[in-house]
């Protein structure tokens, strides 16, 4: 005997316990199976693209912090790389090494926090998150030595970075890297073999490689489906071609693979930072900022440049008309484009898996809405 069911629409409103920000979904359910999902955002749309047309190129750098606030150094770096491509500015070598170290530290922090919130969505109320947060506090102390701020750093500048490394930075960084390996193994011991995580995430939220490329996904979400694409290796910006690292690739494109890819990338970042520290010690001290005028006027033209931010491919499209402010400033946010695929990942599954899948894509609403 078949039970007769009716469709129910549920509004998972802009305010909800899953702490990813103000995101709204209209979900239509048949029992517990998700039949249709409509994502709605714009609840944090601040009009950054219009505001940027009235500010000079250096005044926009604090805006790029507030785009993806979990990994604000990557936002800074993406913008600076785009302006340097537009204005053809050479960055001094010492600044490049500092940028790589800072960006890889930021990647480690972002992945730890992303995994922490992902496991929070699975039901482990905040305990793994507090362990990961402890590591984040240590890295935030290192960043505070450099930029003076705990959170939205405003550290990179067009043509380099704003301050050279503080004398106590490198010993503190080495101590952090040495201690981190023990903590990472503790996380793996506690979480990797956990039966609940494995049974809830293996096989849920699946997306195939062809669909992922069609939806233009990027970052760990794309690599989890098996596509071996990483902008640090395939379209090297800065000095990433001098380092030796592996690109972690998954198999099935489900939630478990996205979790494993992120954990693997944390150790690869650790490896890159160690190599960068060795190469930095052999470098003679120099300036960390290119000589640029106070108000930069790039030549007329346009440029699109993208970096491998922790969440995916973050790019900026800039059009210049020769004056001190950009004519058009557009940010290609990785999580905005990754969200396009969410509907295909959850339709047909259960509603409990919807929250887990949404958490595993790792979005930051300020970057989605801009």
């Amino acid at each position, binding site marked *: 005997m078949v039970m007769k069911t009716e469709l129910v629409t549920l509004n998972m409103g802009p305010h909800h316990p899953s702490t990813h920000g103000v995101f709204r979904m209209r979900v239509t359910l048949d029992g517990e199976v998700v039949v249709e999902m409509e994502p709605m*955002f714009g609840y944090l749309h601040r009009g950054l*693209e219009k505001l940027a047309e009235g500010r000079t190129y250096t005044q926009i750098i604090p805006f790029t912090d507030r785009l993806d606030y979990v990994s604000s150094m990557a936002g800074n770096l993406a913008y600076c790389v785009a302006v340097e491509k537009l204005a053809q500015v050479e960055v001094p070598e010492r600044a490049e090494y500092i940028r790589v170290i800072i960006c890889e530290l930021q990647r480690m922090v972002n992945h730890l926090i992303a995994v922490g919130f992902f496991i929070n969505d699975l039901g482990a109320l905040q305990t793994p998150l507090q362990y990961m947060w402890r590591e984040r506090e240590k890295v935030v102390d290192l960043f505070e030595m450099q930029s003076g701020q705990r959170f939205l750093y405003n550290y990179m500048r067009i043509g380099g970075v704003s301050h050279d490394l503080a004398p106590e930075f490198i010993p503190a960084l080495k101590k952090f890297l040495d201690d981190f390996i023990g903590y990472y193994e503790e996380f793996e011991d506690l979480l990797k073999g956990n039966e609940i995580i494995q049974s809830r995430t293996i096989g849920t939220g699946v997306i195939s490689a062809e669909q992922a490329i069609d939806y233009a996904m990027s970052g760990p979400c794309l690599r989890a489906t098996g596509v071996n694409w990483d902008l640090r*290796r395939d*379209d090297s910006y800065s000095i990433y071609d001098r380092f030796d690292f592996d690109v972690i690739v998954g198999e099935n494109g489900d939630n478990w693979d996205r979790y494993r890819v992120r954990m693997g990338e944390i150790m690869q970042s650790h490896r890159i930072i160690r190599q960068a520290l060795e190469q930095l010690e052999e470098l003679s001290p120099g300036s960390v900022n290119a000589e640029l005028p106070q108000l930069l006027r790039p030549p007329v033209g346009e440029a699109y440049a993208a970096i491998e931010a922790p969440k995916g*491919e973050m790019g900026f499209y800039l059009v210049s008309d020769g004056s001190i402010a950009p004519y058009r400033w557009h940010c290609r946010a990785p999580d905005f484009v990754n969200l396009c695929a969410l509907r295909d990942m959850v339709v047909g599954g259960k509603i409990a898996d919807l929250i887990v899948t949404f958490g595993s894509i790792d979005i930051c609403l300020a970057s989605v809405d801009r």
Partner: protein
Amino acid sequence: MRLKALAGTEAAPRIEEKLSGSVIESNEACMVVNKDSIAGIMQLLKESAEFDFDYINNITAVDNFDHFEVIYNVTSIAKKHTLCVKARIPGRDNPEIPSVTSIWKGADFQEREVYDLMGIRFIDHPNLKRIALWEGFEGHPLRKDFL
């Protein structure tokens, strides 16, 4: 290694011989095309073996005072090259352009955002409505005449 950025002057003749009359101009950085033939050009760029552009990086629009331009940045993961294509829409009243959502599904949200903020309608888009602002908001903020 770096991805090879195809120059507009390289790609333009090969597009012209299949779809003549569609390329307006081309230079080192990009290729400017006619807006009505954009769907045919994108289909060609995706499916032909020499181009094989399967990944759409970025869709955005610029308001130059007498015309709009919609910019598409595409990449080929297998062949490792990139291209920038611009579609020019003359005039300011009711700008319209065919949608490329049927070619790359990732164009969906990006085109909705261009519609919301610039006011350019995409013909044959499955779900063209405002995404960042609310229904009932008057005007399109990123236009140069919005204050």
